[in-house]
């Protein structure tokens, strides 16, 4: 099949994808932009549906100017790119993307591919986390931002990371009685991470302001906590947790938003054949890139949180930089100063990211203590005990073997929710370093396809 247009495809129309496409268009290219959602913007700058009236200031707060600029940039691109919203890329094979739009199948060959696939919340399971009323932190934010709804009138927010405080503050501002902000990270870690966090003083100050506002409103904030259990029959009724002094608490609530930082969506990079390496700071396997976004596979570029979690500002820069790299690799002139400036600005954001990893580490230690009956994989209802059995009795030395024995990560989400935690549970059970537990390999289709799929006419 012949490559159509200029043969440059951008997957994902969030901050990284939009800026990548914009840079390509500036170079006279008409890229294809494939986006799974109906609208561009990504998750952080997620747009509300047509007919909603809140202004950007109400939706994106301090980031409203950036959100507005990004949305305007995307809007201006629509006539200048082959814009394909509502389209799922479900496989990559022989230089071709296999896509599905509303049940219609199509193959899109590419010469250059920029993957800007974004991220989702990183999860640590706990007993009861599948009960109705428990959502991801990002989900709690999306309910508010994109639907004008809250996940509870008296919610608790559990996890760690800047999003924990941001979402709690957004709920407070929406008039909700937040019943607790429970952080697994110790406050002292924030102090120790200050030299790295100082790389972005504005963001640091903003984080402190959210915390202060929550405290002023009387919201209970506890750090260095251990989550124990979500209680409830058919829906959330309470969260049990233990404080740093070892005292147990029970917070009655009607909703729980939980998340422990983010994890990149790397399935497509995996299917494209990109090499991965274990990142000790993030405790995650990440696709390998050079500083400019080139993956290990020629003509495949990675940008934004889908490659490395650095947030939306970094994603905009990384998207543009990856586009510059692709342009240069295809023999077009790109000003070195432009690329050097982008690299320098990204360096500060990488440093800040390292600070966040130190201040709000993923609570890997909780994996060892999860009760055996805890559901780790919510798709297939696989327990921590079954996973430990796979690692022990059945001798599975890494997650793909454990998946074969226990089905953990084999379900419809392909380990997006359970993957990082499952690797921690396995590593703890076998007493091996996390890096040795490996990573779940991606498989096509990366997301379930509609039941009846036809070739496009």
């Amino acid at each position, binding site marked *: 099949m012949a490559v159509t247009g200029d043969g440059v495809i951008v997957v994902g129309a969030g901050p990284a994808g939009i800026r990548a496409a914009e840079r390509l268009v500036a170079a006279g290219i008409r890229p294809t932009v494939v986006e799974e959602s109906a609208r561009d913007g990504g998750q952080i700058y997620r747009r509300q549906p047509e007919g909603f009236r809140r202004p950007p200031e109400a939706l994106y707060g301090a980031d409203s100017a950036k959100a507005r600029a990004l949305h305007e940039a995307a809007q201006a691109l629509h006539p200048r790119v082959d814009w394909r919203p509502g389209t799922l890329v479900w496989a990559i094979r022989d230089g071709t993307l296999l896509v599905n739009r509303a049940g219609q199948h199509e193959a899109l060959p590419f010469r250059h591919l920029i993957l800007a696939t974004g991220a989702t919340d990183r999860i640590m399971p706990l007993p009861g986390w*599948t009960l109705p*009323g428990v959502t991801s932190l*990002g989900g709690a934010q999306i309910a508010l931002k994109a639907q004008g709804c809250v996940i509870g009138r008296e919610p608790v927010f559990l996890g760690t990371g800047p999003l924990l405080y941001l979402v709690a503050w957004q709920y407070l501002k929406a008039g909700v009685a937040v019943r607790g902000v429970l952080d697994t990270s110790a406050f002292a870690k924030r102090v120790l991470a200050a030299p790295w966090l100082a790389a972005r003083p504005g963001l640091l100050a903003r984080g402190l302001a959210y915390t202060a506002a929550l405290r002023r409103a009387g919201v209970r904030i506890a750090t260095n906590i251990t989550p124990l259990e979500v209680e409830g029959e058919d829906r959330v009724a309470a969260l049990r947790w233990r404080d740093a002094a070892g005292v147990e608490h029970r917070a009655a609530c009607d909703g729980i938003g939980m998340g422990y930082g983010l994890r990149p969506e790397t399935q497509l990079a995996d299917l494209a054949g990109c090499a991965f390496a274990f990142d000790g700071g993030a405790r995650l396997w990440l696709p390998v890139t050079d500083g400019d976004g080139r993956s290990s596979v020629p003509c495949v570029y990675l940008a934004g949180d889908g490659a490395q979690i650095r947030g939306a500002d970094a994603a905009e820069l990384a998207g543009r930089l990856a586009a510059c790299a692709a342009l240069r690799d295809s023999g077009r002139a790109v000003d070195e100063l432009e690329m050097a400036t982008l690299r320098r600005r990204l360096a500060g954001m990488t440093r800040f990211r390292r600070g966040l990893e130190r201040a709000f580490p993923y609570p890997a230690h909780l994996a060892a203590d999860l009760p055996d009956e805890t559901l780790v994989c919510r798709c297939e209802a696989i327990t921590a005990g079954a996973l430990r059995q796979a690692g022990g009795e059945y001798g599975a030395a890494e997650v793909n073997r454990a998946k074969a024995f226990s089905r953990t990560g084999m379900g419809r989400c392909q380990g*997006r929710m359970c993957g990082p935690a499952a690797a921690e549970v396995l590593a703890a059970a076998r007493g091996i370093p996390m890096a040795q537990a490996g990573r779940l390999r991606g498989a096509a289709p990366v997301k379930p396809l509609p039941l009846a799929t036809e070739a496009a006419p």
Partner: protein
Amino acid sequence: MTGLLHRVAEADRPPIRLSVDGREITALAGDTLLTALLVAGARLRDSEFGDGTRAGFCLMGACQDCWVWTEAGARLRACSTPAEPGMRILTGAAPWP
């Protein structure tokens, strides 16, 4: 029983009617199916493994835990499907033909 989700903004959109498990509910134009069903109730599906009801989790198309079905047997991901007037939705386990 009150729903899991509560509206705090954008509540002046035009109402739409759809059916959930044979019962009429009122939602608002622009709702996702997930919003429509969880403002009205507290469940989307049953786990196929007998561990109880589910009502989605990630709300961004990743976890696949918000699947519902149309009475005609089509599977829909509730968090990313707009609610449309007249939809006839089934919660619970997948209908077996």
